[in-house]
Structures are given as structure tokens and as C-alpha cells.
């Protein structure tokens, strides 16, 4: 102890004319306390909220899009990762190393949004443009809603974290909220987002807009089986006049940020995208971690222009997915919300509300764009319209992260949906993914989903 004092004294003597040798300033990081105290800093912090969506461990870079198809067998496991193999065999365990990615990436985005939201009120006067303040706030609400929706879809109820974290948490962390509470929070977030966000402008590519919040809310109501709200909101987006279906299906993905896009995450050459790499076989420079299953490949109607996007073959006969094709720079933009889904939501809601004719009309819009004729007139009951809707979703929204959730939602109405789930053992407890074991270990307040 005496020596320590001596040391300090000597240091004081030495340090007299020096910079502080034991307190160097970091050159590539900002101390958290002063990170968000100007509008400009909040502006760049808001960019980082979207950046989290691009993440490859659990964002739209890969697993969010692939797992819902892989889990129910429209994609087949063809890779080497044992974590993906478990998803492909529908034999998930809590220890699966891909789960913390999905969980953690969502919460990382939520924490970034929480930071933005917490710092905004103190800076309100410093924004020259009031509408920018509202927009940043709306974007943060939207980001939280989107991440919580992804969480609740995979895991059920999760802890609702709404404040930025600046302290090491205590030993017992936050417990899970119920799925209903999470949905309620998502709805209030989207209401706030709709209030603050401007209508889609030309320079808004890749950012949340009023319509994006509306579209996401339509999906949220659909998932909660609130058909009328889902119908109204999908209708509002379709009728907004901002969007139009891209005439050629493949161009939705080829051209990027088309009129059909409501929210599409742009990947640039400097972002770590990997979708094309993940789908393409080795001979084309990819690693083909997952490929369209034969069941899925063979389910397309003749003449469906979407099949060539769903599957291509190498000269050696290897099947691979072809929706994300920019293997050279893996900078494919990724659709989060697009107009076709709104037609499908409006159609489903109409069918559920007992208006099959209206439902079929919307489905025909989607079918015609894909080069298919209208549905036969025989499709005129609610059950038939719903079955046709599920089929249309399967062939329209593949590799976009929908299939598993669609099958769950249609299981009560379409026997084929239940049959797929049953055949793969995805029943009862298996309808939710397990919470990541490392999260259960780190937070004793969490309870695991039953059956894991």
C-alpha cells in the first residue's frame, strides 16, 4: 500500500509536464457519455439502427430470410453448419448457435433505437427542422416494432426493453413479457411511427416511411388474426398511390428499390451481404448452404415465371435458389415489405372475413403478374380462397422469411398447412423456437419455451 502511494507520488512528479500517460484518448471510439449530444450525432446513430438490420448473424443478411423456409422444408439444408442442419431437420435445440444471432441482433437494433429515442427529447430545440426531429423519432419507433415483431414470431413473448442500457445489468435480468404485451407494444410503436414519419419520398430508399409503418402494422394485425384492421391497413397502402407492382417478377429483385418496394434494405459493396453466396453452388462461387427442396421445386404451376427465380440448375444438375443473384459483390437489396404482400394480406383478410370473391381478385393480381391465368372460377369458397392464398404466398414470398409463420397461421384453415407441419414434427411446442440457451444462462429471470 505504501508502495502504491509512492508510485502515485512518483507518477505525479513524472506526469507534471506530460500528457496523461495512463489516460490516453481513444482515436476510433467515442466515450458513451458524450456520444449522443448533438443532432448530428443522433442522425448517425439513427443510421446505425438500420445497420443492425443488415447483420448476418441474425438480420436480413441471411437467417431471418432463410430459416422460416428451411425449418418447414421449402429450403433443404445443403451446407456444413450444424446449426443450420438442426433447422433443416426441424430438430432445434436451445444450444443451437444460430439462435443467439437472431435474438441478439434484434436487441442490438432495439438498444440503438432506445438510445436515439432517449437522447432526442433533450435536443428538440437544436434541430433546425422540426420534421427531421419527428422523422428520427418515428424511425426509431419503427425499428423497435420491426425487431420485436421478428422476436415474437420466432420466440413468442420476450422481454420488452424500452430504455437504453448504460449499466451492467444485475444478476437477474428482465423477465419475458407475454406475446400479447409484445404485440400491444408493437402496435403502439407503429402508431407513433405512423404519426411521426413522412410519406414516402424519393430520397427515402431504405428508410422507414409512413407507408412502411402502415404496411408493417397490417402484417402485425394479420398475425394477430385481427382481419379487419389488417384489411384496412393493407388497403390503405395499396390505395396510397405510391406503389405499383413491378411488371416482371424477377425485376423486383434484379432492379432493386422498384416502385413495388415499401421497405427494402439496401446493401452496398461495403456491407457484409451474403445471400447470393449462400444460395449459389461452389461452381458459381457460392457455398450453397441451403437449396430449394424438390417438394418446393415441383410445387409450381406450369408457366409460373417465379419458378426460375426459385430454382436454377447448374450444368451438373445442382439446384440452387436464384432470388438473390449478385454473387460478385453480394450487394443484393433485401425486401422487408413490398406491395405484393399487401395484396396477399388484403386477400387473406377478405377471405377470413367471408368475402372469397374479393380475396380471389387480389390473388389474381399477383398471379397475372407471375404470368399465370386467373384462378379457376371454381375457387369460390372461403376455404378454397385461403388455400389458394397460402399457395400464392409460398410461390411469391419464398426466401423472404414468411413460410413458417404462414403455415402456422393457416394451420387451422388449410389442412395442407397442418399436414406439412405434422410431417416435419413441427407441432405443439415446436411451433416456437427455443430461447437461446446462452440467454437463459445469462438471465435466470427467463423461462424457456416448453419442450426444449
Amino acid at each position, binding site marked *: 500500500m505504501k508502495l502504491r502511494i509512492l*508510485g502515485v507520488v512518483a507518477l505525479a512528479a513524472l506526469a507534471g509536464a506530460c500528457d496523461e500517460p*495512463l489516460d490516453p484518448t481513444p482515436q476510433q*471510439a467515442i466515450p458513451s*457519455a458524450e456520444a449522443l449530444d448533438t443532432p448530428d450525432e443522433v442522425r448517425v446513430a439513427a443510421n446505425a439502427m438500420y445497420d443492425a438490420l443488415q447483420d448476418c448473424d441474425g438480420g436480413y443478411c441471411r437467417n431471418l430470410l432463410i430459416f422460416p423456409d428451411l425449418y418447414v422444408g421449402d429450403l433443404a439444408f445443403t451446407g456444413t453448419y450444424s446449426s443450420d442442419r438442426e433447422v433443416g431437420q426441424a430438430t432445434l435445440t436451445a444450444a443451437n448457435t444460430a439462435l443467439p444471432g437472431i435474438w441478439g441482433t434484434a*436487441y442490438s437494433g432495439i438498444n440503438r433505437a*432506445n438510445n436515439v429515442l432517449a437522447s432526442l427529447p433533450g435536443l428538440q430545440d437544436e434541430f433546425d427542422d422540426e420534421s427531421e426531429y419527428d422523422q428520427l423519432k418515428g424511425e426509431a419507433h419503427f425499428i423497435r416494432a420491426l425487431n420485436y415483431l421478428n422476436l415474437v414470431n420466432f420466440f413468442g413473448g420476450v422481454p420488452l426493453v424500452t430504455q437504453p442500457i448504460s449499466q451492467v445489468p444485475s444478476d437477474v435480468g428482465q423477465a419475458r413479457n407475454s406475446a400479447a404485451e409484445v404485440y400491444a407494444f408493437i402496435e403502439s410503436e407503429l402508431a407513433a411511427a405512423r404519426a411521426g414519419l413522412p410519406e414516402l419520398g424519393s430520397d427515402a430508399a431504405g428508410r422507414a416511411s409512413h407507408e412502411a409503418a402502415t404496411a408493417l402494422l397490417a402484417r402485425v394485425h394479420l398475425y394477430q388474426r385481427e382481419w379487419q384492421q389488417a384489411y384496412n391497413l393493407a388497403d390503405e397502402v395499396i390505395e396510397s398511390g405510391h406503389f405499383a407492382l413491378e411488371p416482371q417478377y424477377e425485376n423486383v429483385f434484379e432492379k432493386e428499390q422498384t416502385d413495388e418496394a415499401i421497405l427494402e434494405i439496401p446493401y452496398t459493396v461495403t456491407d457484409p451481404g451474403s445471400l447470393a453466396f449462400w444460395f449459389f453452388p461452389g461452381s458459381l462461387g457460392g457455398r450453397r448452404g441451403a437449396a430449394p427442396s424438390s417438394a418446393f421445386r415441383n410445387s409450381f404451376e406450369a408457366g409460373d415465371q417465379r419458378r426460375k427465380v426459385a430454382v436454377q440448375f447448374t450444368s451438373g444438375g445442382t439446384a440452387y435458389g436464384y432470388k438473390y443473384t449478385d454473387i*460478385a*459483390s453480394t450487394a443484393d437489396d433485401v425486401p422487408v415489405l413490398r406491395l405484393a404482400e399487401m395484396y396477399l394480406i388484403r386477400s387473406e383478410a377478405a377471405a377470413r372475413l367471408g368475402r372469397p370473391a374479393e380475396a380471389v381478385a387480389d390473388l389474381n393480381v399477383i398471379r397475372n403478374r407471375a404470368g399465370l391465368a386467373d384462378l379457376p372460377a371454381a375457387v369460390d369458397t372461403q376455404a378454397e380462397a385461403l388455400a389458394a392464398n397460402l399457395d400464392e404466398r409460398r410461390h411469391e414470398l419464398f426466401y423472404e422469411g414468411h413460410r413458417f409463420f404462414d403455415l402456422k397461421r393457416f394451420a387451422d384453415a388449410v389442412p395442407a398447412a397442418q399436414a406439412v407441419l405434422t410431417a416435419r414434427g413441427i407441432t405443439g411446442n415446436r411451433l416456437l423456437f427455443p430461447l437461446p440457451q446462452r440467454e437463459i444462462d445469462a438471465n435466470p429471470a427467463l423461462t424457456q419455451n416448453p419442450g426444449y
Partner: protein
Amino acid sequence: MTRLRVLLAVALALALAPVAATAQAGTVRGRVVEQGSNSPLQGVSVSVVGGGPTAVTNQEGRFALSNVPAGTRTLRAARIGYGAQTRSVTVGAEPIEVNFALGTDVLGLDEIVVIGYGQVERRRAGGGAISSIRPTEVTESAPTPTVENVLQGRVAGVQVVQNSGVPGSAISVRVRGASSISAGNEPLYVIDGVPLIQGNFSTIQGAIGQTQGIDALSDLNPNEIESIEVLKDASAAAIYGSRASNGVVLISTKRGRAGERPDIRVQTYMGSQEAWRHADFLNAEEYIEVYNEGWANDGYLDAFEIPLFAPEGQDGALTYDPDVSTDWIDEILTTAPMSNVFASIAGGTERARYYVSGTRFLQDGIVSGYGFERMNGRLNLDYTASSRLTLGTGVALTRGVIERSRGDNTIYGPFANAIASAPIDPVRDEDGDYNLNTLAYVNPVALNELNRAEERTFHVLGNIFADYRLFEGVTARLNMGLDQYSLRGFLYDSPTVPPGSGSNGYGQVGNSFATKVLAEGTLSWQRDLGDIHNLSGVVGSGYEDNDSEFNSVFGTQFPSGLKQLASAATVTGGNSSLSEYNLLSFFGRVQHSFRDRLTTTFNVRADGSSRFGENNRWGVFPSAAVQYRLTEEPFIRDNRFISDLAFRASYGRTGNQEGLGDFAPSALFTAGQNYNDRPGIAPLQLANPDLSWEKTDQLNIGADLGFFDDRLGLTFDWYQKYTSDLLLNRPIPLSTGFGLITENIGEMRNTGVELAVRAQPIRAASRGGLEWSTEFNISHNENVVTKLYNEQPISGSFVARVEEDEELGFFRGYVMDGIFQSEDEICYDTTGADCEEGFGYQSDFTVPGDVRFRDLNGDGLITSEDQGKIGSPWPDYTGGWTNNLSLAGFDLTVFTQFSQGNDIYNGNREYTDAFGTFIDNNSGRARNRWTPENPSTTEARATYDDSNNNVRSSSRFVEDGSYVRIKNAVLGYNLPARFSTRAGVSSMRLYVQAQNLKTWTDYSGFDPEVNFNGAASITRGIDFYTLPQARTYTIGLNLGF
């Protein structure tokens, strides 16, 4: 700013002692000869005990000491390889003559050892646990490529593992086990007083997915090293404070000696390397048989009525050419050259002395994408300006070129793919082009030929020092050091093969710079207080400034044939980093010896580091040691049987701060979280102002024994190391937005014993007679992790695991309990309730021939809860045994190294023993796979789906990793002087050498000395497509002029 700090350090060193007045002085001259032969001995250092002038004998063995203070003085003559001698003389105005005759001390039981901060002591003087190596003996008789290789098997308590056969890659060194989970377990290396930059500064490491790191240490040239000391216990190491927990390796380079003729040496060797083993895999015919059987076993043959593989013409099956059977491993392995040329010149006068050396070392890999070339130059100068002032400098320049390739855990590595690729794929197609239409994995021969990765390093290591003798026995030293490491990494992925084919080629170039600047001042003293007490010690302070920089740029779209990044059409990104940390230290050592019998030593160091949290800025590291030498007591002194008997005990504290990031204690936002080409900042880490170093308290008890005039020497040590405040990246709920927080949490204990024996069973009766000397060391260490955060286990790769009350990185997995032989043995009750005790429900699809796993928790279900301890990477004991035989100019050295009781998890087998499942080639074990006709109890059936998950991480793949290896065998011949002088040289030696000559092991993989993730602390003893070491044959020639 730095200059000011230096000045202050000097001031600190000087302020304590006023310059003493010059006393009356005299001159001592004399001659030193070898006992017995009476031939003159050059290079003997003659000094006045307790401080004063030092001289070195010339070729005639003569020395002269001037300015020796008048009075009764003790002179000491010492040379490595000879027993030191002291002589009492009375110095007056008249010059006096003193002669010495030194006897050989082949065992070095009382040689000089370096103990840090400019001080040396006789081995028998101190009480610390220090092991020494004189690499001259090693490098001249049995050369090795790196410093770590020199240490391997030669020091009790030091476990050296060459993680892989990748040339130039890092080697693991563990001094007395591992004492850290996350802060690194490599010892601190200090060369000529300058702590070295260590670690991996590769710029392409991540891009090539190679888990074998490179290491700045591989730039060191063993040829230019005079001595290596390994400070093992707290007493020896505590003076290095917060960086000493893993032991300290002190390296002293060669320096010139005063003599009339320069000592010129040329040493060269060349040879070739080859794989020493080719693990057993299937040929094409066997491969087809296994895969078709697996297909049929799972019902697909019946369902589709076509086999999985069929010769061309059968629709729907995968086709193959029956004439092709490729042994990919043979295709990829090659015989590789290795060579070394070293030249040095050393000499000087009483006033100025020099040592200059240059080396070129070349080692190609046994897979041609690998290689290592190193060129070293060193200049060491000493200048005696006056009887008080000596100045010196050492400058070493190294240029290294490391050719690298993807390896280990990757699907684009030539060696990994050679193991995994199916033998039915040909290397080339009909047109003679590389066959890129392979079944699953990219053609390894094409990968090896077309892709390139290389790192070039330039390393400047230098120090300057000034010793000023203030007055008798008291010296002030100022030492300034610089270690500057720069690296340029280059990566090129050809447009022809993945992973570069998608982007039409991929390239990367990056630069890394690391700089360490050191300034320290010390004040040391050594005084005889009469004949009874001797007091020595040192105090000092030091300041160290560490900077590291990194930048990297990458691009795609390469024109054919051009590989540099400048040829890329699209630059797709870049990154850079810049960081620093500083260390300010005060330290001291006092040693008191009473009649040479009872020696006590105290050390203390205080380190302040910018990496420590503001609540824990300064760490203090004290230690104490006591030694009692019985042989100095009258009642035992004249015993003819026992020549040495001493007991030692030490206790003290050391630290480890390597696990701390440079700004780890601070809460930070980081940039680079960009979106759509717009910048983004986001939270990076939470604050922890309490963050501090890891602390290791170590108790050491040891004994030194010498018998028969020191012809047999034993050193025994027992130690217990208790490490607390282990830095752990504690997982915090991801729902916070953060994943980890670095905290001082864990505790760990290492207990061990070490025994080193040196003996000369046969001593030559006359010159050229038969002589046999032998050295043997063995050590045992027990590691146990005693505390983790809330008992939360930590998982490493594959089966590596950390749990409380277990060894660090033990293997955890399912326990294989044989093979199901009949349906009766299999339980199909999904609730487990109806399962017989010990049998659990595994899956609906489990059938005879599948692996039975043990139901450890007895709930009738095989779940992740049924994983337990299945092995340990830590050996029960390790050691080495060296034998030297010489007769009539011939000498034979055989160095054997062993490790017993350690397990290896052969991770390859999760794929190669998935018989019929993954398209991967299968190991030869597949020939003994379970079939109804061959009811194997060890090998599973062939299965296409593997629904039972037979290849899950289990005891099935744990193998005994024990081995005994003749690491080095050398047969040499020294030409008699009468012939060599006729040839114009003063000495000439010819030798043949074999490294890894013979290995005895039950391990079935390529090499039992393996760590697939070279640098990892937790993940040890796991093999995953790791390039094995080579067997090397060389011939060498050493010339002296």
C-alpha cells in the same frame, strides 16, 4: 514528451547515488587454462566480486584488469561450460599475476544465469526457480527453426506444443500449466532487457479463415542467442509484475569478447521435409460401396429404385467414372526443402567489442502453398569508455516472408479439402484443366495452385544502454529499447475457384504496425560486507509506450493472371484501426546472502497501466525467496559423495494483463455501423472502472542436489499457483443490446512437480575418449478452475469446455456406449418412461448399427443434458530426455520428447466417420462399419440421413493423445584440429540430423502434436483438418575461422 520521460527516468536512476571519490587502484594480470589439458581458455570472464572492472581472456587465455581498488579482493573466473573459480588476492600499487585453471562443467550446475534488469547470478546463488538453456549448444549441434523449438522438451515445467506443421506459425508455450482463460497463456519474452511484441498481427487472418496464427516471435533467430532463462516461480518472475503470471523467458544475445583475432563462424544446413504419416482413407471403390450402402440402409434404394452412385448411364443417380480413384492427400503433399545459412563474426578489444551476424532460413511447407523465409541481421556493440562508463547497443533486423494458405476450419483449405474430397473426383478433366465440377468440396489441388496468401514482416529490435559505475559495487544503467514490427499482408483468391470465383477474383492488402518504446533506469549494487554478508540488488523505473495500427483494403474483379490489389476493378472496402496503451513501472530487488548459506531475496514491482480501470490503476507485485545451502555447512562441506545440497522456498504474486483491450474499462460508442453509405455510430461496450489485472500467487518449494563432484545433479520443484480475478468475458443478457462484459471473475489453481536430472555417467579418461552425458526432465501439472461467474460454464470450439472444479478446456460431450446390435436394445418410447435403465430414447429412426449414447441423467431420454466429461487435453506428465555420446571426434545427440495421458478430440471424424452421410471421404474405419454380418461394437453403420446423429460430439472421437517422439537426432563429426587448420579453418563439424525421426502414438490422425485453433486458451488438443508436422532430414556443416 517521451524525451522528458526518459530524462526523468535517468534522473531517478542517478539521483539516489552521489558520485564517489576515486580510490587508490592497482592492476591484476593473469592467464586462464583448462584443467587437465592446460590449453589456454579464451572468452573467460574475469571479474572482481562485488563490483569493479571486468576483463575477458584472449586467445592465449590472458587477461588484464586495471583500476582494481586496492585491498583484499576476490577475483572470479567464469566461462559457460566450465566451473567458475574464485581466488583471493591483495591488490596494491604493484601489478600482480593470478592464474586460473578451470575444470569443465558440462552439466552447468553452477553456471551464470540472467535474472533480469542487467543482473546475473550464479545458479546456486538465488532461491528462485529458473531454468536455463544455452542455445549455442542446441543451435550448433541440433539446429531448430525457432526459439520455442529450442525450449521444447528441454525445460522441466515448460510445455511447448507445435500446434501444426504450418511454417512460421505460432507455437504454444505453457510455463507450469495455463493460468488464464481469456488473457493469454504465453510467457513474456524479454530480449536483452526489452519486452518483445508478441502475438498475431496478421491482416489476412480472418479473410483466409486460417486458425493457425503467425507470431512476431517467429522472427527471432536462435543462432544469435547466447542464453535463455525461463523464470518460472514468483520470486524469479515478480520483477516483471503485471505481465509475469505465465512465466518470463529472458533471452540474451551473443556479444563480442576482447581477443586478438576475430571469431568467425559459418554454419549451414540443408535438407528436406516430408509427411511422416498418411492417415487411412477410403479409395473410390470403397467410397462408392459405403455411400450406396448408407443410401440403401435408409430405404432410398427401395423407394427410388436407383442407387446413390452409379456408373454413367443410370438416370437419377450421381455418376462416377469407375477408372478414377484419387488419393487427394497424396496429391497435395510434397517433399519440401529446408535450409539455413548463418555467419557471424565476433571480437574486439578491451575497449570496443562487436558481434555481427546474418542468417537466412528457408522452410517450405509439405503443402506447397505454405512457406517461411527469414533473414536476420544483428549488430551488437559494447564500448568501454572509461573504467566507469560502458556503452552498448544491439540492433537486429529481420525480414520474414510467410506464405500462407487457408487451413484447419475452412472449406477452402487445400489440406482440409484433401481430407474431405471424394476419391471419385479426378484432379483434372479430359482437357487437362482442373476439375472444378467436384462432388462437394472445391478441388484442393486447384486451391493450392491458384490462390495465394502471403505476409511480409519487417522487424526492428534495438536497444542502447549505458552503465555507469558510481562507486564500488554500485552501477547505474539507462536502457532504451525499441521494438518495431511491421507487416504487409496480401491475399489473392483466383477468379477460377471459389471462394473468389463468384466475384471474379478477390484480393486484399493490409498493413499492420506495432511499436513498443521502452525507457528505463536502474541502479544496481553488489557488495561483500566482509566475508559473511553479501548484499546485492536493483531499483529502477520504466516507461513503456505501445502503439498498434492496422489498415486493410479489399477488392474484386481481377483480370486473369494479375494478383495484386491494384488490378482489382472494384475496391469493395477497407478498414483501419489505431490504438495504444502505456505502462509505467517501479521495481526493486534485494538479495542478501549469509556465508553463501542462507540467501534471501525480495522483489517488488508496481505497474500502472492505461488498460486498468480507474479504480484499480496500480498493481503491486511482491515476492520473497529463501534458500539454504547445506553444503556450505562445515559438517557436510567435505563429504565426497554430496557436492551440493540446497533447499529453496519462494512465494509471491505476479499478474497478467494481456486479456485487457486497450480501452477495455471505458464505455464507448464505435463508428463504422454504416447504412446505405452513410456513417453510423452505435454502443460498443459498457464501462467497468474496476477492471484490473489477473493475479497469480505462487508458492514454490525446491531442492538442488549434486553428487560425485557434480557429475549427477538433480533439481526438484513443487509449486502451487493460485490465480484469481481471472478476466472473463461474462455473457450478459443479449436483450441489453450487449453480449459480453469483461470482468475480473474467475479463479484457477495449478499444482505441479518438476524434476530435472543431469548426469555424466561416463567421463572421458583422456581427450577423445568415450563420454556420455544425459539430461532428463519430467513434470506434472494439475489444473482446476475453481470459480466462474455464477458457475456458468464456458464453451470453446467443439467439445472444449470450462466448468468449475474441472480442468480448463476439458472435453465435454455425449458418451458413446457401444453400437445397438438389435432392435430389442433400442427404446422407442418418446417419453423415456418405458426405457430400460441406462437405455434412453434417441430418435424414432434409430436402428441397429447406430451409436448408443449413455443416458447420464437417467431420465430415459438422450438430450443435451446427457453430456459429460469425456476427456482432457492436459497430459499427466510431459518431459524430454537428451543423450549425448561422444567418441574420437564423433558425437551423437538424441533428444526425445514425450507427453503422456492427454486426450485428443479428433474433430475430423465428425465428418470422416459419418459413414455414407456427408459426401466427405470416410476414414479407413468405414471398412469395419457395422453390418448385420459384421456386428461391430465400435464403428457405426453406413447411413445417408444419420437420423440418430451418430457423429454428434461424443467420446466416440476422443483418442489417447500420448506420444513419445524422437524430436531430434544428430550424428556429427568434428574434424581434428590438425586437419582443419591445414584446411584453413580452426574448427569444422559435419553432421546429419533428423527431426521428428520416429513417433510412437496410438493417435489415428496425422499428428498427435496438434491444436487446430493455435492461439486459443480454452480450445486445446483438438484436431480439425490441421496440417501435420513434417519429418525432416538435414545435413549440416559448421566452420570456425
